[in-house]
């Protein structure tokens, strides 16, 4: 999905401090890093902090980039660390569910079986639908949210998500399943209770 990942960048030029090449890199990856910040932190100011700190950090540490991972994986790793640091810095209220070691599978079993999937997208996102979707993502426990943002919003592969977050692929898959079940349940609750006039 990310067009920028198909672009070629000269690592040598970047390491040598070529500003034009760095500007090209910034333009190629800004949108997804800003979006990651928005989805993780829930507001534009914090997302902008994540965006700026990610590229400042990248600029400082480019000399140590060895090219073992792709440049997008490397940038996502910096950005996800920035977002998590921001979340834990006390600026944001920590979700109580994040303080528990790991949720059990029983916490993510489906309870609502209303099939709202056939409704068209403009109807699903009408009224407060879009806001409800954003709120549901914000309510995801932090450990699940980062995996979900990378895999399902940004379309990063399981392998790369594991590399970015320093997790095993099995762990990424488990968290992804739980995140998807968590969101599905909340959307199902919303769409099964939404007043008819709002639809």
């Amino acid at each position, binding site marked *: 999905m990310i067009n920028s990942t198909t672009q070629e960048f000269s690592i040598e030029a970047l390491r040598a401090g070529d500003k*034009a090449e760095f500007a090209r890199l910034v333009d190629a990856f800004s949108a997804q890093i800003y979006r990651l910040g928005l989805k993780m932190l829930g507001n534009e100011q914090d997302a902008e902090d994540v965006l700026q700190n990610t590229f*400042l950090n990248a600029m400082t540490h480019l000399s140590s980039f060895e090219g073992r991972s792709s440049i997008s994986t490397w940038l996502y790793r910096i950005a996800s660390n920035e977002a998590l640091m921001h979340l834990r810095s006390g600026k944001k209220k920590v979700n109580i569910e994040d303080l528990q070691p790991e949720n059990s599978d029983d916490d993510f079993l*489906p309870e609502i079986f209303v*099939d709202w999937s056939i409704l068209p*997208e403009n109807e699903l996102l009408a009224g407060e639908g879009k806001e409800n979707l954003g709120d549901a993502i914000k309510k995801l426990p932090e450990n699940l949210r980062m995996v979900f943002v990378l895999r399902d919003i940004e379309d990063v592969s399981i392998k790369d998500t594991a590399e970015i977050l320093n997790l095993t692929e099995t762990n990424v898959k488990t968290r992804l399943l739980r995140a998807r*079940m968590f969101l599905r349940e909340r959307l199902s609750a919303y769409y099964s209770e939404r007043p008819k006039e709002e639809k």
Partner: protein
Amino acid sequence: MSDHLHKNCQALLGALSEYIDGELPAELCKEIEKHLEGCDNCRVVLNTTKRTIDLVRAPVDEDVPADVRERLFKRLNLDEYLSLKS
């Protein structure tokens, strides 16, 4: 469903993500599809989970807001390249 979850439903739920992502072997997919034919609840869970993912996936051509880009370039001392966006 959670109170009296059938063994086959539990197995399907465990494999749901990988099934949606097309990462399961064909033989296992066939088994899942056979179960889905006879289980309304699992079919609803599958359809609504797929739809949830469709709704959140980011648009391909989304750009960072112009003012955010401008402040970023200034912070990085890249002002001279602000006009170069293709």
